[in-house]
């Protein structure tokens, strides 16, 4: 979504580099160097890098329908890889402890906390993040459209996690009651306590998805 917007912005004014695009460029460019230096940056990383470890660090990851080569540390979580190696910062890191749900992504259509998945354990999986929901032409996913229409979130830090959970839940239960929807989204927290409006938006999302 935002990538698309940035694409348009830079296409329109080639000389101008947006802030976001600049940051993303730095992330992409620094990935390999960064990966090597995290070990030394991490406070309290007293365990020396094990030598002779089995398995490659350079892996192919299927994210949002594209296979991307990425250098992944053994101890790296999927949220970390997505955000800091692949520049997919739509996935948020809230608690980093499988509590808040803002890092929710779909792995083989199953919603999981990407902060609590080691990237190497899902090499074979198909990963979908919030950036992969919209159609290639930029048309929003029905749930995204409903969030815009209902203005479902306040600060929206938790939004991408909620949307991913809702999208997965609607695949299992396309016609939920409000209670069922609340239960389906119970693995996501909103610190703005905006649950009522979020549920309004997600119920609208269910309606749009059924119509789509």
């Amino acid at each position: 979504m935002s990538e698309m917007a940035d694409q348009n912005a830079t296409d329109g004014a080639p000389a101008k580099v947006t802030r976001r695009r600049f940051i993303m460029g730095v992330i992409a460019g620094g990935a390999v160097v960064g990966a090597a230096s995290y070990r030394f940056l991490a406070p309290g990383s007293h365990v020396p890098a094990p030598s002779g470890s089995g398995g490659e660090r350079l892996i192919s990851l299927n994210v949002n329908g594209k296979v991307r080569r990425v250098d992944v540390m053994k101890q790296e979580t999927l949220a970390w890889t997505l955000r800091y190696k692949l520049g997919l910062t739509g996935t948020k890191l809230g608690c980093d402890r499988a509590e808040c749900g803002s890092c929710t992504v779909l792995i083989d259509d199953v919603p999981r906390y990407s902060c609590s998945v080691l990237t190497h354990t899902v090499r074979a999986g198909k990963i979908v993040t919030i950036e992969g929901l919209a159609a290639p032409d930029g048309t929003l996913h029905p749930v995204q459209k409903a969030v815009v229409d209902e203005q479902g979130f306040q600060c929206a830090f938790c939004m991408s996690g909620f949307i991913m959970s809702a999208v997965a839940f609607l695949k299992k239960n396309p016609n939920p009651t409000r209670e069922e929807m609340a239960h389906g989204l119970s693995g996501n927290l909103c610190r703005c306590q905006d649950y009522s409006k979020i549920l309004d938006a997600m119920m609208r999302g269910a309606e749009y998805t059924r119509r789509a």
Partner: protein
Amino acid sequence: MAVIRDVMPAFDLLQPGSVAEAAKLLDQYREDAWVMAGGMDSLDWLKDRIKKPKVLVDLSGIDELKGIRQTSKGLEIGSMTTLTEIAEHPLVRKDFGLLAEAVSLVASPQIRNQATIGGNVSQDARCWYYRAGWPCYRAGGNICYADTPVGRNREHAIFGAERCVAVNPSDSAPALIVLDAEFIIRSSTDHRGVTAEDYFIGPKTDITRMHSLRPGELLTAIRIPYTWAGTKFYFEKVRDRNVWDFPLMNVASAMELTGGNIQRIRLAVNAVAARPMRLGNVEAAVRGKPANAATGEMAGKMAVQGAIPLQFNAYKIPLMRNLVKRAIVGASPRQAENALARDPGVQEAAWTS
């Protein structure tokens, strides 16, 4: 807790493709190795830098540990089967609704999608002093921080405290005990089965772990016999929030009635002691009696005999009395999972009467 401190310290990640290969790796690396199932327990330890294994053995690539199979004697559930899979499986729902109910009440949807049954029964204590890395008895020290006049011990044990007052946090454990499940354990050289009851151990046996897996051993499957299939089940979990939370207490029962009288029964309660408690004496006392309020009342009183509350958990005694009563009478439907549909009166009554 819950502070992001950059990435975890480095470890080597080994991903065996078979149980034999995994067992060999555990032999090879011994105390340097850490076994990870779904990772919902493991990653907290690693992120907090409290456990620092050199080698992480990830079981998620072992297909022989996944899935639910029907045998002539019952169901066999691979230890790496996720809780969602168990909760939704038609055979589990048909014959062992108790287990389906128990695992569907664990944590949140995303956690159930990743957490495994093997991990759920083998997870470590959730006492926050211990989880925060305080050098308590369980961590190899010589003090219990929870069992002091100012210790925060609202969630802790009322039975069987022995230096450590942490409780077993599993929801599936009491259901598996009630269903008389057998846990299949393998190592590179051995193969054994233990009853669900014996799988869980208290601090008297070994204060540093909650299960009876020895170093180098793996829990590979859980077998549930048809012994209790089709009987009357009851499961209830009480927690502060209606999702995500660990149990303040849970209760599971399976009961066969003839003409309103209890023909046979199994009853277990968790989060009251370091291991889930099967209430054998209560089972014996109610056998042959009608499954009514008077019997439930008697069972509840009997169940809490010998309970020793800590500073902040005396509420667990009436809570347990009422849960055991309900497990026998079955009168009160389980609390609605959904917070919106929840009647706060039910919980209030249980805590105070």
